[in-house]
């Protein structure tokens, strides 16, 4: 069975359609990244999976249960990290973590959890005195208190510094390695690229891509090279039949094809054209496209 099954889900707020007929699944032992710009429908989808709202149309199942109608029983095995807030400002770190460990009653030791999120030195601090990164780690700890089989994490690294991000990534990877289905909502594509095995790309309430990250990337290549700044990109584009762009002193050609022979042929054509035009060729590389580029491609250039 899949940990999370979303089928033909539509979410409306009055006349506004936030999520439009989407379907996807999330599996145990994997990090599934729900990606998209702000307002794409990620949080609405996640919150429906968490049981905060009923679908307008369609169905959602988490651990084979309806999260809206079987919320209380389901939540003993589901960890939730809200995008922000969730703790009273005067609440102390160790008390809140102990409270959630007791509420979930899944045998998680508060002291061990405190150490796992590296907040031992802040145990007596109140929520209002924590930094942004510490708050995110504490919210993550509250999700971990459930010893979750499914964890919904909404923007877990938002506003977190580099060290904090490393700590959070490490915890998320450990969760998935131990069999938890991690559903990670983020607008940071780079973060998803580092963590996710499966990617669900949202845009304007619809899913524009839903595939394992490796499949998504291997299906799209790019050619990068350096040359003279006088290179005429329009002429080269016309010659090879693909769009050439200049990005940070590098010329880039994106290829939406998994066919590696096509990449070789393209290299040949670019090299020949540069030779004919007496232009230099440096730092030539062919590789998988970055997620950010794939997303731009799929959404017509918007992030």
């Amino acid at each position, binding site marked *: 069975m899949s940990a999370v099954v979303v089928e033909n889900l539509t979410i409306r707020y009055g006349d506004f359609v936030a999520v439009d007929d989407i379907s996807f699944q999330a599996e145990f032992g994997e990090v599934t990244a729900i990606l998209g710009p702000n307002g794409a429908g990620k949080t609405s989808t996640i919150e429906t999976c*968490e*049981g*905060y709202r009923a679908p307008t149309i369609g169905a959602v199942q988490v651990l084979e249960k309806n999260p809206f109608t079987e*919320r*209380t*029983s389901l*939540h*003993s095995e*589901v960890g*939730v990290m*809200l995008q*922000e*807030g*969730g*703790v*009273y*400002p*005067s*609440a102390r770190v160790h*008390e809140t973590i102990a*409270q*959630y460990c*007791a*509420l*979930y*009653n899944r045998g998680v030791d508060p002291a061990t959890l405190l150490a796992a999120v590296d907040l031992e030195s802040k145990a007596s601090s109140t929520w209002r005195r924590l930094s942004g990164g510490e708050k995110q780690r504490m919210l993550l700890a*509250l999700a971990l208190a*459930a010893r979750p089989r499914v964890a919904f994490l909404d923007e877990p690294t938002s506003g977190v510094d580099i060290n904090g991000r490393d700590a959070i990534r490490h915890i998320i990877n450990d969760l998935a390695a131990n069999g938890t289905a991690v559903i990670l909502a983020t607008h940071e594509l780079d973060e998803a690229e580092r963590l996710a095995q499966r990617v669900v790309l949202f845009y304007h309430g619809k899913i524009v891509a839903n595939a394992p990250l490796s499949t998504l990337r291997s299906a799209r290549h790019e050619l990068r090279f350096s040359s003279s700044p006088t290179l005429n990109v329009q002429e080269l584009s016309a010659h090879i039949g693909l769009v050439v762009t200049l990005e940070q002193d590098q010329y880039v050609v994106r290829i939406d094809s998994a066919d590696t022979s096509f990449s070789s042929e393209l290299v040949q054509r670019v090299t020949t054209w540069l030779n004919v035009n007496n232009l230099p060729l440096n730092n030539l590389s062919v590789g998988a496209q970055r997620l950010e580029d794939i997303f731009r491609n799929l959404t017509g250039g918007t992030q």
Partner: protein
Amino acid sequence: MSTLTTQLRAELNVVRRNGEQLLVTLGIPLLLLGFFSVVDVLPTNEKDPVNFLVPGILALAVMSTSMVSLGIATGFERTYLVLKRLAATPLGTSRLIAAKTLSIAVVEAVQMILLISLGFILGWSPQHANWLLALCAVVLGTFAFAGIGLFLAGNLRGEVNLAASNGLYLVLLLIGGIVFPLSKLPGALSAISRCLPTAALSDVLRDALMSAGQHTTSSWVVLLVWAIAAPAVAAKTFKWN
């Protein structure tokens, strides 16, 4: 520790840590009772003002805990998404409400002990007190004021709710028969006041503690209506986040 006990402890911690809540629930009632019992400036129609004041201040204590303290704390819990996060635990709505109810009961028990003790120290002498009837009145008053507090908390932003709860507290303190007898208010205001839960609770408490509960049918009706209607409206309109 059970889920309910865990949440009850968390609720009491919130009350204990919020100085303004302690001021409203304990400080102001004790101060008013002590001050106006000693400084006889109120038109209470009693030879000894403490006999008028104790039942009224007990009503004030119920209002301060179940309306102001509960309402403000719950309003900020909405604003800070505490309720939203708790909703994603196995706690469930019924145990959350039970924990809040029990926390009110604990605070009110402390209030009653302190206020009644201070009343006795100041010379309060209840005549034919019917304590069971007084307890029923406190329970009904708690439901009524909790309903009002949660109605405000469930519909207003945290800061607006804070201002509205404190403003309402002041108004009900002045025209609710707590420190000024309703008979001393202007005619129209007195008639409006008799329909308020504060006046009804003060009246039934005063009657239960001083006259064994003989003469207050209309106030019991008013209190009962508030105790049913206010929580029902709050439940119907409450927005969790």
